């Protein structure tokens, strides 16, 4: 089936260079990073390009997913009809319950502040799945180890690329960067916009910041 491209903008297509958030800071330092995501609900259109890109980049089996876009709505009537979209994925807590409860130490935080799982150490007790207040962990049906979003640290970050979801998003609703670097896109955005995080009262210090949808109308 042939689906030719549709452009809304007559002239915009040619020079539509997507501004890409830069990962590399001035100094190539391996430590001291605290990687985080900002999800802008005012920009998300619910296309799920992020979750598809995530699945592809990280070979996520079909039965499970690392990243879900949760749609809520419709709200409003007629012209005002709109939906709200939320991102559901690992929030890379600074005090992560999964790391605290894992009996074998398979759950860990790397030097850049990314929470991940050593599949080989995981015995599959699923204590971490029960402990995670964000409900984003699953048992990989192939490896039988627990897995979840690792901000693409094992795949794309190593190659100096952005996480798959960040690059795939057509509206730049996901911004990625280092909280410790005041010049990072994440830091700039957090200075400029009001954000919130889920379940902070549990003391988990999550690092998925969310710009509230406000009315939730697209662009």
């Amino acid at each position, binding site marked *: 089936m042939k689906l030719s491209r549709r452009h809304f903008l007559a002239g915009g297509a040619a020079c539509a260079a997507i501004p890409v958030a830069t990962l590399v800071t001035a100094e190539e330092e391996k430590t001291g990073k605290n990687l985080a995501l900002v999800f802008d609900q005012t920009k998300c259109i619910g296309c799920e390009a992020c979750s598809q890109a995530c699945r592809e980049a990280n070979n996520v089996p079909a039965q499970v997913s690392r990243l879900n876009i949760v749609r809520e709505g419709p709200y409003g009537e007629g012209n005002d009809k709109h939906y709200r979209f939320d991102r559901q994925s690992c929030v890379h807590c600074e005090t992560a*319950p999964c790391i605290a409860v894992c009996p074998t130490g398979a759950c860990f935080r790397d030097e850049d502040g990314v929470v991940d799982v050593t599949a080989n150490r*995981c*015995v599959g007790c699923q204590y971490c799945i029960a*402990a995670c*207040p964000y*409900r984003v962990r699953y048992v990989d049906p192939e490896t039988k180890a627990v897995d979840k979003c690792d901000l693409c640290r094992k795949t794309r970050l190593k190659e100096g690329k952005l996480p798959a979801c960040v690059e795939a998003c057509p509206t730049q609703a996901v911004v990625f960067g280092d909280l410790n670097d005041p010049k990072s896109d994440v830091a700039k955005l957090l200075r400029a916009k009001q954000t919130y995080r889920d379940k902070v009262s549990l003391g988990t210090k999550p690092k998925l910041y969310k710009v509230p949808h406000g009315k939730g109308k697209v662009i």
Partner: protein
Amino acid sequence: MDNAISSALHFETMVWPWPIAIYLFLAGVSAGAVLIGIAVKLYRESRGQIGYESGIVKGMALIAPIAVIIGLAILIIDLTKPLEFWKMMIYWNPSSVMFWGVMLLSVYIMVLFLFLAAVFYTPLMAIDRRYPIVGTVLALLKRFEKPMQTSMIFLAIAVGAYTGFLLSALKAFPIFNNPVLPILFLVSGASSGAAATMLFGMLCFKEKADSQDIHFVHKIEKPVLMTEIFLLFAFFLGLVFAGGVSAEAARVALMGDFWSYIFWGGVVFCGMVLPWLLQWFSPRSLTHKPGFVAALCVLSLSGVFALRHFILYAGQMTAI
């Protein structure tokens, strides 16, 4: 109704299914049996009787190791990688309750066997006639019976409470994340241990239904049951007072669908009210019948069995 049951057993926030509840139950039975067995042993020794000759102590020797080993086996089978359970022994994470549980249970099982060997020193010495080395080892163990007994009391309390701490570390579930839970599990474990030792003492070791030891266990059982009722009361009242999601969790658990019936019918009625009513209002001729005492034991065991399932499932139903 099928739908209601299916939705009570499979829901979105559920992570741990029924094998975990059975493990929680069996670990509690084992710890409770050890506590009751040691209490009976001390009681007999204080009256100049020999500890190991009691059917209750023998029942403890049978139930305590079997329950904990079956429980652990269920736990291991329930892993997604059962064959890699040994990694729990070599990779350590001191911040994990489960890590401490693995360590605790290993020590518990080890000391339990050594302690039982010391308690049953005299009958076991029969083996010494064929294998003299056994006698040497037993004699050594017998010397450490007292310190082992003291450590067994602490280990059993720790195991009984551990199953509660295992759940109370889960901060997203108000019913689990509750300081009363470990104490509740310890106390209900003790009452299940009492029931199990009496039941198996009578079934396997010819303990009389109106023996002095059974009377003694009944005497311990009453305050234990009272404490259990008060703890359950404090547990849910605390949840209600906490408000918000906690109160909602209590509401769903006590006034919801399937699991509230298990609680009121299984835990409260079968496990507590019915045995007590039967004990009080039955004629003395009946209460001394082994079948009657055994029935009461089965009732209170099923009450604790229901409590573990109720807490595990109802607890996972409401998450923050």
